[in-house]
């Protein structure tokens, strides 16, 4: 009898060991899976839980898993070691694979290398979207499934030149596909994703600042699970959030740089640091990043830019750039005498917001649509443009229409000044607006006049495609001066600044 029982127990122990192996393997590949168990165990809570409840929920399932773990403690130690070794091999393999993939893809895989070091476990897609490549799509779908982030489907017919980009409809945000409340995604991230996809938060600086504030909230609510290090686990927790946000709206270059910074700061937290201290440090880091790179940078840029504004100037601005508006308001406060011409374009009509802000200050403004550009340019003395990102070869990526303005201004010999903070400088290289862009909702182009909307049934016409581009790329020959927080530099010196920044870091 005893013999039988022993063998049974042995069998049970072996089975448990095997299970533990598998569990550890899965754990390393997908930490959100643990989340799934936690969430399943927890009681459903209201959709917008207070900061207390996630912390509340966490101790309960932790106890459950701890009690389960206690029973397997002796077997675990050997299995743990083996699992750790396997996890290390796994991570090295995936990072090597990732680097190889990156090499095969086009030039913009350089920024991929650094995130790979920080996230050896999750395979990252190269930065270039490839929607018309079914293999790449499958990989993306698998990755999102693993992270439990809903996959958003494309909408409508895409113009063939841009078929490699995503095109989403504003009417179906990915937040609809998230079940409430049990999700892997922090509620403030869900809120942020909704704000991005609906266009409530728009503009490079606004999106970055909102992202950083939300990350502060996330860090506040985070608690390190047992047997995990904050520096590694928090980074892994952030990746499904980032995937979700990029499903809502593709990440901007400034957001990408901010995320890189946060991940670096998190992974630099020493392991002996206590959780509260670490969280406080991270929040202070984020605050100082916002302060230095955005707020103080705009003060510095205004100082330089005001030197370039002389009395009697006629300044042309395009769309709504928070930085350019700030500069003009500051210059007006410093008693410079100038007037502004605001150029606007459909379908976003962002120029109206800029017009509202400037008129409120008391600045004399004129408002035209972009089709009237060559008509008013002879009276313009300077053009001030904002930028979404500055690429490593000196090209300026900005709202669609900017390159047109730069081109016509060059033809009229009007100096073009681009204002951009250094945190928007990006290592990517792009020479045209096709390779990497964003397609907005094509239904935005439908206009209703006199009760008739002509493009309403555009989907029924098979050969008709509506193209609503968001960004375009301006070559450096059209830009006379770039004003950054480091000073005034010519457009060709952007790689120098990037080099200096990398040396600093």
């Amino acid at each position, binding site marked *: 009898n005893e013999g039988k029982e022993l063998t049974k127990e042995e069998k049970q122990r072996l089975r448990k060991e095997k299970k533990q192996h598998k569990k550890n393997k899965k754990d390393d590949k997908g930490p959100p899976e643990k989340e799934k168990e936690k969430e399943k165990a927890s009681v459903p809570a209201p959709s917008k839980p207070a900061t207390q409840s996630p912390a509340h929920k966490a101790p309960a399932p932790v106890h459950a898993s701890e009690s389960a773990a206690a029973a397997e403690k002796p077997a675990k130690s050997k299995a743990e070691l083996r699992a750790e070794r396997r996890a290390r091999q796994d991570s090295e393999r995936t990072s090597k694979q990732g680097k190889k993939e990156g090499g095969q893809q086009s030039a913009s895989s350089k920024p991929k290398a650094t995130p790979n070091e920080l996230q050896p476990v999750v395979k990252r897609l190269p930065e270039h979207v490839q929607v018309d490549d079914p293999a790449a799509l499958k990989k993306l779908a698998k990755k999102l499934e693993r992270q439990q982030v809903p996959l958003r489907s494309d909408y409508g017919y895409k113009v063939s030149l841009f078929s490699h980009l995503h095109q989403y409809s504003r009417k179906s945000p990915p937040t609809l596909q998230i079940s409430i409340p049990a999700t892997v995604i922090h509620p403030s991230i869900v809120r942020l994703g909704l704000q991005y996809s609906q266009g409530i938060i728009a503009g490079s600086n606004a999106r970055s600042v909102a992202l950083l504030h939300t990350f502060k909230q996330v860090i506040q609510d985070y608690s390190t699970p047992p047997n995990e290090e904050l520096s590694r686990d928090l980074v892994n927790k952030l990746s499904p959030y980032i995937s979700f946000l990029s499903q809502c709206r593709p990440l901007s270059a400034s957001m990408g740089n901010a995320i890189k910074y946060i991940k670096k700061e998190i992974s630099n937290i020493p392991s002996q640091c206590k959780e509260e201290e670490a969280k406080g440090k991270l929040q202070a880091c984020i605050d100082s990043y916002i302060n230095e790179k955005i707020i103080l940078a705009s003060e510095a840029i205004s100082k330089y830019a005001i030197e*370039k504004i*002389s009395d009697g100037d006629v300044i042309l601005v395009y769309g709504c750039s928070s930085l350019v508006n700030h500069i003009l308001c500051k210059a007006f406060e410093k008693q410079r005498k100038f007037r502004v011409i605001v150029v606007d374009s459909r379908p976003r009509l962002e120029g109206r917001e800029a017009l509202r802000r400037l008129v409120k200050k008391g600045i004399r403004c004129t408002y035209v649509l972009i089709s009237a550009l060559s008509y008013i340019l002879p009276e313009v003395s*300077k053009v001030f443009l904002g930028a979404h990102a500055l690429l490593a070869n000196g090209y300026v990526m900005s709202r669609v229409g900017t390159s047109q303005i730069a081109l016509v201004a060059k033809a009229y*010999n009007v*100096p073009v*000044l681009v204002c951009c903070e250094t945190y928007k400088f990006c290592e990517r290289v792009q020479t045209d607006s096709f390779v990497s862009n964003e397609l907005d909702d094509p239904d935005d182009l439908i206009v209703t006049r006199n009760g008739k909307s002509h493009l309403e049934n555009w989907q029924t016409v098979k050969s008709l495609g509506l193209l609503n581009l968001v960004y375009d790329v301006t070559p450096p*020959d059209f830009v*006379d*001066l770039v004003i950054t927080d*480091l*000073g*005034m*530099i*010519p457009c*060709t*010196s952007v790689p*120098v*600044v990037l080099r*200096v920044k990398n040396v600093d870091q």
Partner: protein
Amino acid sequence: MEEAELVEYFRAQIRGDPDVASAVAAIRSLLEFLRRDQSETILGLRENMTQAIRRLEETDSSVAVSSGGELFLRFISLTSLEHPDLSQCKNVMIERGELFLKKISLSRGKVGKLCHTFIKDGAKILTHSSSRVVLKVLENAAADNKRFTVYVTESQPDSAGKRMAQKLRKLNIPVMVVLDAAVGYIMEKVDLVIVGAEGVVESGGVINKIGTYQMAVCSKAHNKPFYVVAESFKFVRLYPLNQQDVPDRFKYTADILKTVKDLNQEHPMIDYTPPSLITLLFTDLGVLTPSAVSDELIKLYL
């Protein structure tokens, strides 16, 4: 050292050695000023130096004096002056100042050596007004047994071109003086254009005697290379967007700035040539394209 003494010393330097660049003379005077300075603190010393530079700028309103002075100040205060004793600090600063002076006195020779290889045998060169650096380059080329002809513009209002022609004749270089208005006419005959610079700005453009911009536009239209020769102490942290954007204190001579009320009636002495019209810049830091100037400036100033 009093300001009047400083100005006198500066003028004496220029009188004594008419071939020296005004910036070099200014830096020599600043070094002398540093030696004789009586301030008790480093901050006071710096303030006095800044004041001295400003005073020199008022005497000679060229861009080079301003840029040279600023670079001198930065160079000598670049070291961490951690010596507790002020006189020790001053000695270190004076040493560095002398090093700087030695370096820049050699810069003209370096430029000449770099540039003269671009002048081929049988070349026809066009130059503008009177520049000592261009003279050095042509001297080096002549010493290399190259045969070339030089066309110099008259360069009104001070007819500096005629002086340049005289100096070239002394070197046995065949030279012809042309009117400023004849630049378009002569451009098809020449092979290359070499001009000096009073200042090199951040964008890679140059500030030089009035008429340079015209010459650059003509050479671009005829696809002739337009070379600028300048020493590195002429690099200045200005960024003009167009002719109007150049500060008034450089446009007119110092005397006019002091005496005349309405500057609109006066004619400026310099103009700005944008970097798109310049082929190459020859400096003692090497042969640079206009876009590399910003790189060098960032290295010098940041």
